[in-house]
């Protein structure tokens, strides 16, 4: 354990250059703003900014994206509290109590509770991450081709956590992403596959322009008909301070939600949103609050905010140690790692410890800087969140176009961005979720590579997939994740039918 903290200190030392500290500061400020502007969110924000990291060395690049991702969790609560519009999905539960408190004239208190609990939750998540990540990476060394195949199968099926209300639409999105991931080149034989004679397609569909189009440009198309938001709340630092009693109200909630939130964040596919919903539900059903939840309870804000920051930190454990992204934004980070020529997974901590620990250390720095920035930016944020769509639409379009061109240094990137933007806008408009599409696009080539290597090593025998204990465990969990949602839906339907028949009687 102490060895891990020594490594972390090494990571912090490697970050202590003017360039890296500046990157952490910029990443934190940009992340808070992206999180605060309704409708952009961490997924679009990281996607749009991904091309800007090409000229960075890998450590600085991951530090920028990681701090942006992490800081959006802080920013998401600002518009949720001031406008009742969550900047990002993990802040949905924050809006319930935050906006209620803002309407009572205590917006500053709500923001302070959100910021402090975000800091506590994030810190807990990072401490658990530091304590367990090496163990997870060492455990990951036991993973051969068959084990990785079953683990990726498990990750693919756990995408069901992200598919929302309509399982069919979620599955269609997952399959579209998987099919797109197959285009280009066969990873084992090295021959062209599904490129239809197009040489540009030989290298497959490039991740950066695809993701910029899917979540950036499609969002811009949607924004054209969305109304501007207005905010007439004025905030001051003095009004925003919590007293000792208020701090003691949120402290136990933040600590508990931080621990639970971290473990939810580690699960592939669960992510910050699930964590926030789960902890809010636990707070509501199991614990007492001074004010009922939903009516302006700072305990409600603390449970949601602490949990989503802890989950964002926890999600880095499977990403760095096993190469499995936990969310849509995680898939962008994984795509970035692969793009910079790094192979996330068990060997990352031995082959490139400076990079891995630098990334984790940047979260600690971002957590500290975000608290200071969030408090000092409060008066400014009321203006930032109300930037008119009239300005946002053309400026984001320019960033999308320039970024996607830069990703391939050719018009090919612009074409991918343009067409994926249109297709994903149409899908999104009909309720098809985007996160499963991106996750399966990243995971499918990895799954195919390991699966075919395992088959090849075992001379085509399928038994290789249930020979080791890891494979058996992953397959058992795979079956559980596949069956559990169906059983849950059936049980809920039966309960609803029983309730209805009871009501009729």
């Amino acid at each position, binding site marked *: 354990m102490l060895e891990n903290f020594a490594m972390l200190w090494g990571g912090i030392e490697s970050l202590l250059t003017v360039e890296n500290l500046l990157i952490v500061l910029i990443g934190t400020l940009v992340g808070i703003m992206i999180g605060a502007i309704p409708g952009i969110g961490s997924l679009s924000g990281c996607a749009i900014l991904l091309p800007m990291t090409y000229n960075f060395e890998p450590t600085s690049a991951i530090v920028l994206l990681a701090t942006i991702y992490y800081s959006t969790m802080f920013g998401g609560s600002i518009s949720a509290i001031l406008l009742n519009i969550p900047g990002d999905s993990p802040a949905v539960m924050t809006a319930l109590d935050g906006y209620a408190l803002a309407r009572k004239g205590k917006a500053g208190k709500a923001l302070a509770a959100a910021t402090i609990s975000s800091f506590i939750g994030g810190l807990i998540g990072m401490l658990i991450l530091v304590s367990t990540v090496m163990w997870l990476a060492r455990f990951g060394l036991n993973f051969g081709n068959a084990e990785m195949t079953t683990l990726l199968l498990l990750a693919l099926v756990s995408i069901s956590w992200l598919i929302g209300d*309509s399982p069919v639409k979620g599955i269609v999105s997952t399959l579209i992403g998987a099919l797109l991931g197959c285009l280009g080149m066969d990873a084992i034989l090295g021959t062209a596959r599904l490129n239809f004679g197009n040489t540009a397609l030989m290298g497959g569909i490039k991740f950066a322009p695809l993701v910029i189009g899917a979540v950036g440009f499609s969002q811009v*198309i949607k924004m054209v008909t969305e109304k501007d938001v207005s905010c007439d709340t004025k905030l001051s630092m003095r009004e925003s301070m919590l007293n000792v009693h208020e701090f003691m109200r949120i402290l136990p909630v933040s600590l508990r939600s931080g621990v639970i939130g971290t473990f939810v964040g580690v699960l592939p596919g669960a992510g910050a949103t699930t964590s926030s919903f789960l902890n809010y539900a636990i707070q509501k059903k199991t614990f007492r609050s001074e004010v009922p939840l939903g009516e302006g309870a700072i305990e409600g804000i603390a449970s949601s905010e602490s949990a989503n920051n802890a989950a964002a930190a926890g999600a880095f454990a499977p990403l760095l140690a096993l190469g499995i992204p936990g969310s849509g934004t995680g898939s962008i980070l994984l795509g970035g790692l692969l793009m910079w020529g790094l192979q996330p997974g068990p060997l990352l901590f031995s082959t490139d410890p400076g990079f891995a620990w630098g990334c984790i250390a940047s979260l600690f720095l971002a957590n500290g800087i975000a608290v200071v920035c969030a408090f000092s930016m409060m008066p400014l944020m009321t203006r930032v969140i109300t930037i008119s769509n009239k300005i946002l639409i053309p400026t984001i379009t320019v960033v999308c176009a320039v970024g996607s061109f830069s990703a391939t240094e050719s*018009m090919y990137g612009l074409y991918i961005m343009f067409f994926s933007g249109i297709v994903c806008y149409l899908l999104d408009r*009909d309720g098809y979720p985007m996160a499963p599409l991106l996750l399966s696009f990243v995971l499918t080539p990895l799954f195919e590579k390991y699966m075919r290597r395992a088959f090849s090593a075992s001379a085509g025998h399928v038994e290789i997939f249930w020979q080791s204990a890891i494979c058996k465990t992953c397959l058992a969990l795979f079956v559980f994740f596949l069956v559990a949602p169906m059983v849950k839906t059936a049980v809920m339907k039966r309960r609803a039918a029983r309730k209805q028949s009871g009501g009729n009687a």
Partner: protein
Amino acid sequence: MKNLSKYAVPFAVTLTGLFFTVYTVAHYQLYDATMGPMQGALPTGIAALLTLFGLVACFKTRSSEAVPLDLRNWSVVAAVGAVILATHVVGFLPSIFVFLFAWLKFKERLPWKTTIIVTVVMAAFVLGVFVWWMQIPFTPGILFEDLWG
């Protein structure tokens, strides 16, 4: 017509799945006795499932309401399409800056001051980060090809 539009996405999904199923079966090997699944196996499986779930989505769409299509959303698509076409003639950077200026001034009818400030800030950002720092070779277009090399 409005009721039929709600089938557009699931129908397109089904057709795409069907096309890829037939194409991969026809062009790639699916299985080898000693190597197991080959290059056609996974795409075929995914495409077949896509066809199946596309049909299920079509069936499920029957009970849902059609989402009205707002043509205003397509204005930005048309604008980026125009940028792509103009890029071949005048190059990428001039096209994108003309788009930004024209959108702010003529589509959104913002005041001259706001339009100029936003255009200058964005131009400084793009030229500073992507041209000067990252040295991205943006397409010059046939008009400026000789000039920019």
